[in-house]
């Protein structure tokens, strides 16, 4: 697939510039401007209330010594390590199931997509009821099965409980990506393989998997970005007194430092580190893409 398209000529160039200007303006001053502002702020001590003072790299030094931030970063990394493969695998499985000719497939697809369009706050409240230690649905089922109830939000389990909810919330979107990928695979390949005597498994591993690698690549990329930015479900499910959370993640730490603790400089340094990690991962993914992703 070439990305070149048709090149504008003569007066067209002028109109291209005019029509792109509003978007570019927003991008440059909004996105780029705030990135730059964050970089500058990360080099200052700023409480939001009084003018910032120069801090040099002090805020970056604190990234390594601040126990709270180290905990948050550890949580984010652990979360991502479970969430990304979880989302990719679960949405691929769902997409394959939903890619068959079954009765009412659109109804099922809608069901899987519902979490994506549901308010995270409302969904988190429902999950709270499911996970409840004494009154929760999950423990009720476990007890009926003769198993010991689990404390889903105790320190040792909370992260896993939260990962499950986040995967549940993201499967719908991944399913759409994979469905699109699956439906792009030409039928003839399967027909030819069948004629050659390939079974279901062989067709899946030899045709579907290689040809769906672009979707897997894309979904992994998006899920990684989402994992590092995850916040809403986690906060809703693990919050406790006065804005605190029992599973603090990096985004939570950024928010709390900036707006609860009046430490905008430190919050900015944390944001930069988060962005740097994501950028590094993206670079790694693109390196992998060149080696393993199959484009037709």
């Amino acid at each position, binding site marked *: 697939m070439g990305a070149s398209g048709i090149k504008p000529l003569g007066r067209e160039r002028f109109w291209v510039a005019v029509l792109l200007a509003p978007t570019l303006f927003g991008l440059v001053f909004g996105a780029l401007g705030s990135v730059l502002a964050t970089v*500058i702020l990360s080099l200052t001590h700023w409480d939001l*209330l*009084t003018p*910032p003072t120069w801090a040099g790299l002090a805020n970056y030094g604190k990234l390594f010594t601040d126990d709270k931030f180290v905990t948050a970063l550890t949580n984010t990394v652990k979360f991502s390590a479970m969430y990304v493969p979880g989302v990719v695998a679960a949405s691929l499985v769902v997409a394959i199931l939903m890619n068959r000719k079954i009765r009412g497939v659109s109804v099922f697809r809608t069901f899987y997509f519902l979490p994506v369009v549901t308010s995270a706050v409302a969904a988190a409240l429902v999950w709270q009821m499911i996970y409840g*230690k004494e009154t929760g649905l999950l423990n009720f089922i476990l007890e009926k099965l003769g198993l010991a109830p689990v404390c889903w*939000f*105790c320190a040792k389990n909370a992260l896993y409980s939260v990962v499950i909810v986040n995967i549940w919330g993201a499967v719908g979107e991944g399913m759409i990506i994979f469905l699109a990928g699956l439906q792009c695979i030409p039928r003839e390949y399967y027909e030819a393989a069948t004629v050659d005597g390939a079974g279901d498994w062989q067709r899946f591993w030899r045709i579907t998997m290689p040809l769906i690698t672009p979707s897997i690549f894309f979904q992994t990329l998006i899920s990684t970005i989402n994992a590092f930015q995850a916040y809403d479900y986690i906060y809703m499910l693990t919050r406790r*007194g006065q804005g605190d959370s029992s599973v603090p993640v990096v985004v939570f730490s950024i928010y709390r430092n900036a*707006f609860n603790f*009046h430490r905008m400089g430190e919050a900015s340094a944390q944001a930069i580190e988060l962005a740097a990690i994501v950028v590094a991962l993206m670079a790694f993914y693109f390196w992998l893409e060149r080696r393993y992703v199959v484009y037709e």
Partner: protein
Amino acid sequence: MKKHLVILVVFALALAACGAQPTQAPGASTSPLPSTTQAAAGEPVELTFMAWGAPEELDVWQQIADGFHAINPNTTVKMDVSDWDSYWTKLDTLYAGGTPPDVFAMDAPMYLDWQSRGVLLNLQPYIDATPGFLDGFYPEPLKGYKLADGYYGLPRDFQTIVMFYNKDMLDAAGVAYPQQGWTWDDLRAMAKTLALDTNGDGKTEQWGFSCDLWDMELCWSEAIWSYGGDVISADYTKTLIGEPMARQAWQMFWDMIFTDKSMPDTIVASEFGGDLFQPGAVALYPMGHWAIPGYAGSGFNWDVAPMPSGPGGQVTSVNSAGFVVAQASKHPEAAWEFVKYALSADGQTRLTELGLAIPVLRSVAESTFLEQQVGGRSINQRVFLDAVAYAHLKPIFKGYTLWADAVGNGIAPIWSGEAELGPTLDLVVVDADKVLAEEN
């Protein structure tokens, strides 16, 4: 590549220019003396006022703004009410942008975190120009705002913590209502009787006692004080929640949760969405007056009693919300006039209608507040007022937010049943003291 650098530099300059907006340097300006030039000039003034609260509270604030406007036709007050979390974010952002509201609400424990940054106006010159202005105030909430060089804020209303009890549950168990003079031991015994497994599934459906164990205000500061201990040293350099007397208070909560099982651990308590009293899940529940409008519509009978006594006497907690004026306000005189009005008998009476707190003016508290019947219920309002006599001020010090986070976060694993009491307290004290050392 060079071109990119140029663009970057241009941006840096543009941003630097944005950042250099006129947030007044702390202490740079001398306290302005009250003058009436502004009012005399007759130019229309628009003030902005911000407070946290539920959407329906905006009506009451608007009435206060209208009442003020009737007396000061030149001044219009723009009211802005948002929920607690959004309020602080919004306020921070407005300050960062150099356009803070003229007058805004302050939670007393956070007062010094703000005042110490030099962003609040010293109200002392204005108070001096209004002789006798503070005479009618309750002295306890007022104390929290007084600094060496005067008041940088004034309380508007306050909360004393009292014991709410579910009458129906006590009646059903044949337990006498708590009376003045009861003790924490009495409470523990009562809670044990009142905790019930009503459907015989081996789990407690009705809890005897419950309270917020993250923040100190609702029960743990009261317990520590009445066991003869303290929360923090008088000079705010040492955390005292690990001292022997305080440990007795912690031990009591520990025993109620894990030995008596009359009090839910925090994981179970959170399943009720933060409040166990309103859904009728707990018999004894310490709370402030702000909960009353919510409780008024509940389907059971309830009342309030004084807090229990301990070996160190009877102690409860008092905390206030107040008004502060931004140092950068362009209309400090008008802002003061508004604060003055909101703290007058007229303004205080209207504020009392919210039913959320005790007015800071004694005359209004002794009349409008005492006679108040929120949601048609006759509540023993006197208990809230009497509590002032034995209340300790919720500590107000610089670094409060970070300290409270270190403590609340540190003790949390104890109450979810995941950490031992003694060793955890040792660690929390070290962490909390580190915060105090950094802030001083």
